[in-house]
């Protein structure tokens, strides 16, 4: 198992594997998102209370779920990068941060657009909103730190340490702002037992959720490949690749 792990962590092997998997991730993401968004925006029944405004859920909830998942993924990569100093983990770490920041920003913007008609304000100082905003700042810190340090390996390790301290901080931030103030509705789909949502509404949402995860996989693989090429530009396997693809 460990030899397999080490082989996977070597840049050329990962690059080849990513090349094989990325297109499938892309296809799955396109299909699921097309079904989810078309089904959600045009065919799902309107909510009895929020009417058509609830449809932002098909963008907002997947984006919010990803914003946290990517942080977890980034922190796991950070742990591997800091402890075992695996180059691939460093690449994953720095490639994941901008994706996470984009989804966090998307979740915030869609939430604000929904908040105006529903709560009567674009922004309220609510627990979930505030912790999401702070998450965006944490991503921004990682991106800024990575760009400020010249040596890419030292930069990635510094970002790794920051991401790890950040991940310990995220639950503290979450509970501190939650006790401070909360207005956001509870989770609808992750409740135990029967979901409090109609199946016609829920199915496109599940498709969107799964779809954005595939999309993230696709983008992350491609970004990591780019990062690897950039860092390994002096090595033999990159030259071989360039020659074989006739660029």
């Amino acid at each position, binding site marked *: 198992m460990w030899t397999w792990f080490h082989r996977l962590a070597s840049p050329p092997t990962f690059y080849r594997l990513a090349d094989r998997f990325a297109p499938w991730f892309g296809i799955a993401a396109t299909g699921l998102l097309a079904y989810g968004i078309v089904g959600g925006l045009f065919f799902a029944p309107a909510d009895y209370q929020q009417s058509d405004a609830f449809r932002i859920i098909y963008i907002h909830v997947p984006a919010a779920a990803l914003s946290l998942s990517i942080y977890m993924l980034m922190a796991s990569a950070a742990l591997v990068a*800091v402890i075992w100093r695996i180059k691939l983990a460093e690449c994953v770490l720095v490639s994941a941060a901008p994706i996470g920041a984009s989804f966090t920003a998307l979740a915030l913007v869609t939430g604000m657009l929904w908040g105006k008609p529903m709560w009567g304000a674009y922004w309220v100082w609510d627990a979930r909103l505030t912790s999401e905003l*702070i998450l965006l*700042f*944490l991503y*921004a*810190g990682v991106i*800024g*730190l990575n760009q*400020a*340090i010249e040596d890419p390996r*030292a930069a990635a*390790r*510094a970002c790794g*340490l*920051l991401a*790890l*301290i*950040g991940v*310990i*901080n995220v639950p*503290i*931030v979450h509970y*501190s*702002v939650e006790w*401070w103030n909360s207005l956001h509705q509870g989770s609808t789909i992750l409740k135990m037992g029967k979901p409090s949502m109609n199946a016609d509404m829920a199915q496109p949402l599940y498709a969107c959720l799964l779809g954005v995860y595939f999309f993230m996989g696709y983008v992350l693989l491609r970004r990591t490949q780019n990062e690897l090429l950039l860092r390994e530009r002096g090595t033999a396997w990159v030259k071989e690749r360039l020659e074989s693809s006739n660029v």
Partner: protein
Amino acid sequence: MIQIFAAVLRRELRLAATAKTEWLMPLFFYVIVVTLFGLGATPNDPKLAEFAPAILWVGALLAALLTLERLFRADFEDGTLEQIFLGTQPVTLVVAAKLLAHWLLTGLPLALLAAPLSSALGFSSAAIPALVAGLALGTPVLTLIGGFASALTVGLPRAGVLLPLLVLPLVTPVVIFGAGAARVAQSGLDGAAPLYFLAAILVLGLTLLPWATAAALRNAFE
């Protein structure tokens, strides 16, 4: 172990004694920031007292931020830090001593200074113990997180702009609980619960951040 800790602490304090302006400036900065809040509001506005916890906390935070860039910079530039890493003593211990010295020179004075400043904003004097206790528990966390961030950015030419971006999101719980304790005490209730949370965060920070700071410093040398 204790000897090394005491030696580093003594060195830091002696260095500070030769450069008094360096640690007196943040205190003046704090006074000026709070004064400007008073000047920005209408004269003797009673609302200022309501906002006093937020003003005093954010002011202390900004004043502490000013000093962070210098925390490891001088030692990094003149090679002291390199010697510390070459030595046999645990780096974490040296880092912890430096952080303690930093807190004694900035955090503690800022916490004490908040008491007279709070009465300038019309903050109720009965709540001052909660405010000062909150700052006394919160400023060491600022020093710990700030020390970690300044270790990450040590040797960078643009560290000054990056530092606030790294530090401020991490200290939000401290501000919430610290200003919360002052607010609760001001409304005549018992502010102990948020103070316990602050103490818990401080203990967590003490057990994690000196090690993380040492790792970040080591990373800057490789």
